[in-house]
């Protein structure tokens, strides 16, 4: 016996150590990322005291229709202090209440190089909306010794450049109340580029990585104040509450600022100001007293933003009189210039409209991409794809897109196929397409450094890769191993990249194939903070630090352009990206990255998506089910029920997780998930109409309650419920086994339970019973929602199916709604090839009229009819309705609110009016 122990013992030890190692992969690697204190510019800016800026404006003038000035500092008291060179200040005004303020080094004073201005984000059209300022007034404000310059912004609004102390703000003309102000606390600081002198040591080290910083520190920081604001919102991407919590000030212990630095964070946690995959430096302030305002800093370097809790500056001894209802924020960026936009609102939808007038409105998605997506890392081979596809049919669950993750490629060389697993990719896609379904494959920016890979060979020979600080092709590590990254800042390289998506170049692709851009922060496994070194070099000598947050944006742009080119400009692209920046909404959808299968992450998905929507990125969602880990069945079902209302609705899972397609959890749960997916499909006409609204106005599909109820204070910090459009309120269920939920229904009008039609009073919280069948959802009284109640295999197959209208009457027995229809895929709608109906119900009569300008020409028509009209809140007397102009009668009866679902009280139904959806008509209840 005894001798046998001998060889086992070391083995056991070894095993155990292994086990320890293997099981340990389960935590956010916090220490791999910098804190503000480890980031010199952030630490410095945060330690500055209010009113430490001594800048003042001189040489104020009107130049090229803009207000210009020089910002100077008084000469230093001691000679060894640096005298900063004057900075150039420009203030311009655009239509609809947008003020742009730029501050940069003066090129005529010979700076070592030009600081980076982010190109291709501001719409070219925006420039054409510039108001040509002719003059400015001077005025003395706040008892200053010197004058201030005042220019017109919009009706009732003015912009003020206060000369000394330097401050710039927008105010209401009447009463001269500030709306938004920059540098009212004097925290402005601008580190100018320098030429390295003997003895200068600017290198920064972090975790064994060295950043050479050839131009020295070049950061910018300043304070921005939102007046009459109860909360501030925006600046994604963070997994945190919707209304941004203070990060400094009384009662805040040691919090990090909100960080904007695109990072691939392994297993991110659900409540942290830490930076994630994308960055949009746009913040909104909202308050009951005045409304909404917004501030956007176009800058792609690392940014850190403090929300300063009331009383944060108490130690400075200066308490400003107007500090009530005012929120101060501190903005810090490592590089770039000041290029900021003030949006005056005053309504929430005005601010998003103003913001998207600068950065663009969300692209109009293809109809199929607004339906349900089925993804997993990985659907392994063609057989797997076929099985999953046929299981959806077997269980009568519609889906529109099947996704292939990195394993489908030949050794993580994108644009290639593993020919053992996918010998006939075209045939596979065609089979899906025969059912109206599409496929998405992944294309990441890291290119395998493999001499036999044509893409690598080409990029190398053309010099298209990002360079390291020494000028060699940057070599980082990602999925394929040693990889390089195309320099997407260069338009020529983007154009080259976009050609790769042609059907000829992308062998094995078909017109039904669309693209997923992952890892484009960029993720570099062996780089500092899992990304590219800041001193890597881009096109035009731009340092990576200057454009980091926009790298993924340019990559997304090039891919999206590629799909447009592939379709000869006739097919709308669909590209999902993980990294994003201001303007990404023009190129496709985003999702919230690698979340985890737990209840907290289900909950945080709502504020995350709301924030994205508010900042332009309306086409967004979270991985249904949670990427990491195995969700309990109840969580998975709840996630489907919530995800069915995400603008982007996709299930996804890590390859170590168990399979979780909707039919794997027993019949009852299959039914629940099918029902959730069916709900989405029924509401697709409504969603598509909302996507069109976003496309024209920037107003997001999924909205915070306060966007619809801006003066209802109870909604301001609610991030458990949200609106889908203006008609639908949805409240997630974020706890297991709950029997009740408290749901706040805002406004003065009633709400109808979406499923049962039961009516609830508005303006109060209701304690509701919760069943496993659904999460609480309500239709707002006074609205009309278009539905399609027949389910098909996919959304594209529903094109000819008839509509149902659900009219929810308000207190005055009226309601209205819209329906937008186009071909679902081409750009013809831009030429007016669409149907846009306005439905109004009043005085017992439903009227359909066109919202298309020049409604005379019909560039797009539809044979669809409306087969059913449900009227909620109507007395159940009438038996007939009269349809004009055809002068037909339709029966009225009591019918179900939903066809397939259990028992609910019957509702007034106009049976088979069968009016063409494209036509003008009226239906009068007799």
């Amino acid at each position, binding site marked *: 016996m005894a001798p*046998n122990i001998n060889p086992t013992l070391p083995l056991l*030890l*070894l095993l*155990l150590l292994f086990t320890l190692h293997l099981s340990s992969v389960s935590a956010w690697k916090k220490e791999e990322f910098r804190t503000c204190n480890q980031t010199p510019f952030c630490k410095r800016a945060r330690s500055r005291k209010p009113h430490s800026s001594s800048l003042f404006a001189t040489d104020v003038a009107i130049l090229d229709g803009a207000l210009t000035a020089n910002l100077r500092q008084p000469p230093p008291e001691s000679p060894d202090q640096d005298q900063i060179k004057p900075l150039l200040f420009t203030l311009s005004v655009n239509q609809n209440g947008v003020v742009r303020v730029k501050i940069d080094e003066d090129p005529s004073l010979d700076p070592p190089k030009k600081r980076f201005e982010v190109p291709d984000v501001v719409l070219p059209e925006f420039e054409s909306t510039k108001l040509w300022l002719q003059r400015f007034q001077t005025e003395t404000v706040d008892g200053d010794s010197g004058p201030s310059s005042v220019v017109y912004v919009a009706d009732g609004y003015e912009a003020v450049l206060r000369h000394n102390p330097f401050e710039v703000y927008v105010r209401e003309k009447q009463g001269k109340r500030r709306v938004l102000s920059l540098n009212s606390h004097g925290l402005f600081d601008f580190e100018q580029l320098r030429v390295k002198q003997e003895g200068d040591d600017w290198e920064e080290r972090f975790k064994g990585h060295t950043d050479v910083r050839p131009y020295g520190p070049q950061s910018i920081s300043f304070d921005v104040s939102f007046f009459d604001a109860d909360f501030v919102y925006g600046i994604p991407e963070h997994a945190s509450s919707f209304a941004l919590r203070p990060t400094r000030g009384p009662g805040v212990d040691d919090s990090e600022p909100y960080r904007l630095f695109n990072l691939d964070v392994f297993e991110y946690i659900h409540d942290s100001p830490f930076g994630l995959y994308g960055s949009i430096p746009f913040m909104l302030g909202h308050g009951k007293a005045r409304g909404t305002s917004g501030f956007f800093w176009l800058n792609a370097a690392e940014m850190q933003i403090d929300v300063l809790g009331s009383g944060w500056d108490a130690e400075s001894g200066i308490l400003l009189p107007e500090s009530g209802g005012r929120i101060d924020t501190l903005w810090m960026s490592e590089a770039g210039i000041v290029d900021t936009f003030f949006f005056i609102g005053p309504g929430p939808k005005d601010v998003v409209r103003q913001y998207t007038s600068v950065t663009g409105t969300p692209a109009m998605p293809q109809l199929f991409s607004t339906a349900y997506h089925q993804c997993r890392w990985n659907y392994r081979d063609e057989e797997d794809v076929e099985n999953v596809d046929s299981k959806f049919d077997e269980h009568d669950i519609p889906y529109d897109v099947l996704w292939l993750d990195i394993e489908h490629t030949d050794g993580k060389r994108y644009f290639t196929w593993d020919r053992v697993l996918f010998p006939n990719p075209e045939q596979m896609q065609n089979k899906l397409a025969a059912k109206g379904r599409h496929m998405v494959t992944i294309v990441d920016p890291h290119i395998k450094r493999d001499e036999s890979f044509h893409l690598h060979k080409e990029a190398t020979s053309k010099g298209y890769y990002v360079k390291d600080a020494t000028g060699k092709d940057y070599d980082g590590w*990602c999925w394929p191993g040693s990889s390089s990254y195309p320099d997407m800042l260069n338009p020529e390289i983007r154009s080259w990249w976009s050609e790769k998506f042609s059907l000829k170049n992308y062998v094995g692709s078909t017109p039904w194939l669309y693209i997923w851009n992952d890892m484009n922060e960029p993720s570099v496994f062996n780089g500092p903070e899992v990304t590219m070194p800041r001193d890597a070099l881009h096109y035009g000598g731009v340092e990576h630090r200057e454009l980091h947050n926009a790298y993924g944006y340019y990559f997304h742009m090039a891919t999206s352009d590629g799909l447009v080119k592939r379709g000869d400009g006739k097919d709308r692209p669909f590209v999902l990206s993980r990294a994003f920046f201001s303007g990404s909404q023009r190129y496709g959808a985003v999702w919230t990255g690698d979340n985890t299968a737990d209840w907290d992450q289900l909950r945080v998905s709502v504020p995350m998506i709301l924030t994205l929507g508010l900042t332009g990125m309306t086409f967004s969602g979270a991985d249904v089910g949670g990427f990491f880990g195995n969700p309990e069945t109840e969580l998975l079902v709840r996630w489907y029920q919530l995800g069915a209302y995400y603008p982007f609705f996709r299930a996804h899972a890590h390859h*170590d997780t*168990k399979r979780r397609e909707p039919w794997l959890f027993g019949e009852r749960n299959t039914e629940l998930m099918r029902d959730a997916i069916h709900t989405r499909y029924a509401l697709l006409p409504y969603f598509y109409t909302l996507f069109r609204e976003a496309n024209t106005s920037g107003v997001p599909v999924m909205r915070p309650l306060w966007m619809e109820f801006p003066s209802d204070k109870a909604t301001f910090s609610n991030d458990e419920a949200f609106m889908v459009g203006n008609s639908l309120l949805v409240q997630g269920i974020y706890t297991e086994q709950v029997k009740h939920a408290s749901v706040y229904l805002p406004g003065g009008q009633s709400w109808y339970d979406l499923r049962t039609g039961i009516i609830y009073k508005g303006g109060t919280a209701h304690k509701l019973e919760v069943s496993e069948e659904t999460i609480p959802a309500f239709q707002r009284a006074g609205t009309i929602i278009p539905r399609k109640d*027949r389910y098909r295999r996919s959304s594209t197959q529903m094109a*000819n199916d008839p509509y149902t209208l659900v009219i929810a009457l308000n207190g005055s027995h009226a309601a209205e709604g819209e329906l937008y229809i186009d071909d679902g895929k081409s750009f013809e709608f831009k030429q007016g090839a669409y149907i846009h109906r306005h439905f109004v119900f009043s005085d017992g009569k439903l009227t359909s009229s066109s919202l298309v300008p020049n409604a005379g020409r019909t560039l797009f028509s539809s044979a669809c009819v409306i087969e059913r009209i449900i009227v909620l809140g109507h007395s159940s007397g009438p038996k007939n309705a009269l349809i004009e102009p055809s002068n037909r009668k339709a029966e009225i009866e009591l019918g179900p609110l939903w*066809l397939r679902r259990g028992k609910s009280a019957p509702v007034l139904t106009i049976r088979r009016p069968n009016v063409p959806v494209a036509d003008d008509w009226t239906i009068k209840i007799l």
Partner: protein
Amino acid sequence: MKIYIVIHNLFLILGVLFISQIGRSASKSLLSTNPFLGIAPQDENYYKTSSEIFKCKDGSKKLNRAQVNDDFCDCPDASDEPGTSACPGGKFYCRNAGHVPLLLFSSRVNDGICDCCDGSDEYDGKVKCPNTCWEAGKVARDKLKKKIVTYKEGVTLRKQQIEQAKLAIAKEEEELSKLKSEEKILKGLVQQLKDRKEQIEKAEEKERLQKEEEEKKRREAEEEANKEKSKAEKEANQEKNEVKEQVGSEEEPMESTHDDKIGVLDQDVEEDKSNSVAEVEHTDKSENASPTDGIEQHAAEGKEESPVVHETDLHAGNEVSPTSDQATKQENDVAENTEGLSREELGRLVASRWTGENTGQHTEEVDAVKHDHHESHEETPEDTHAEEYDGYASETDDDSQRYDNDDMEDPVDEDFGEDDHYDSSPPYKSDTEDESDFSDITSTSNPSWLEKIQQTVRNILNAVNLFQTPVDKSEAAHIRKEYDESSAKLSKMQSRISSLTQKLKHDFGPEKEFYSFYDQCFESKENKYVYKLCPFKQASQEEGHSTTRLGRWDKFEDSYRTMLFSNGEKCWNGPDRSLKVKLRCGLKNEVTDVDEPSRCEYVALLSTPALCLEEKLKELQQKLELMNQEQPQGRDEL
């Protein structure tokens, strides 16, 4: 009935004609001319009543007859719209004459895809669906016929197998009961022999003492003659010595084993230390980047840790959870230390978080340094290998004797291993070393075997005179030999009994149709892996020389249509491996497909006659009959 079919077809043809000419409105005319579209034959009566009132099948609503198939859903159970897509959740019946009828989800009606081979589900004119039932039906019938042939043969094979199984089981049961009764007798004999042996030993001891006594006396007499004076003192001394000797002989063996163990432990720890140091030195040379201090410190930590780890393992067994805290700690250490890694190592390390894979030799080495793995001479390049150790640990926990994890080809479970050895039924025999050794017991057909022993023992016992002194040396040796042999036989017999008992405890299916699986393994090669399924035992995946256990036998599931192997080796970042084997009727036992639809959850297909059920055969035959009946007239195939 026939007439109806003709009319039905006529309508269809007319309908299709209409539709192709005038499109949408034709569909209405089709429905109005054939209000019974999509209705299954067994439901026709329900829809064909002459009453003007139609009742939803669930009784929830009464409708006007005109509301049936009017393309508007009235009934919550969808029963008013069998022929349209108006009711989600409804069903559409297509007759598919020439092929099998089909019941479709109503969402398939007029969706632009031909689902019914007779084309009846697409009548709105948007697509033209040719009637392909004849061709498709022929293919299907041929396929079905082939299947029936297989089943027929399979049913016979199955019956034979069941017969054989029943015989074999009866035989084994008989053997078992015989062995049990023989065991009783043999046990008695062994006991007798043991008693006798002990008596002899006592007698011998006594004899020895006597001899000593005599010798002593002789010497005493001599001494007395020489030194009578000191006699008293010497006697006292002699007694003392005796006591000492006795005590010593009792303690010695215990002490020595104890020493042994400690020696081994010490030696082990010593070895570990030297290994780890060697490893550190090795990597230090190759990795100049890493600061030596750090590594040495880690190595030292490793040393300190090892006893603790060892202890945890012994006490907590294979449970990983109690050590997860340590794990986190360890991971933090790693993270803090990433600066020491080369850029490539760092890349691999970070990548492995997502992939959950060990990223190959390079990281392996890195990990070895970081975690102090003591594995310089037990290089484990593949993660499967690592997992193998992992799995192996769980075994060695309860039985540290089986440490030779390399010969995974032998069944892992010891009990089963022995079963193999002792099996006597020729077709399933697996050859093993000590087959011959066992022949003396297995040849139980010779009835005199036990009697012989009994006789021998009796003879011996009678022959040996216990009270005879001195003990007859040859007699004593004879008894000892006889005892040794008998007890060896007894222990073999007992293990045979236990293996038989184990085997017969298994669930071989309602008709024992899976009995023959007991001693068989099935193999299938998929790409680089060989999958080996041994029902009632275990299943594994082999790649070259490395073997991964996919699971131990668990049970049948799904009314004996699935075999489940569970609790296989733990998956990196995933569940314990498991394998489901779906059983199909086939003439040979054959694994046809192995798949891993979910991480570390394998699924295999096994065709076997055991699944060729007679009822199923009848079902198939009926189906074929039905298909033949459904053929259009005049085109009868047979």
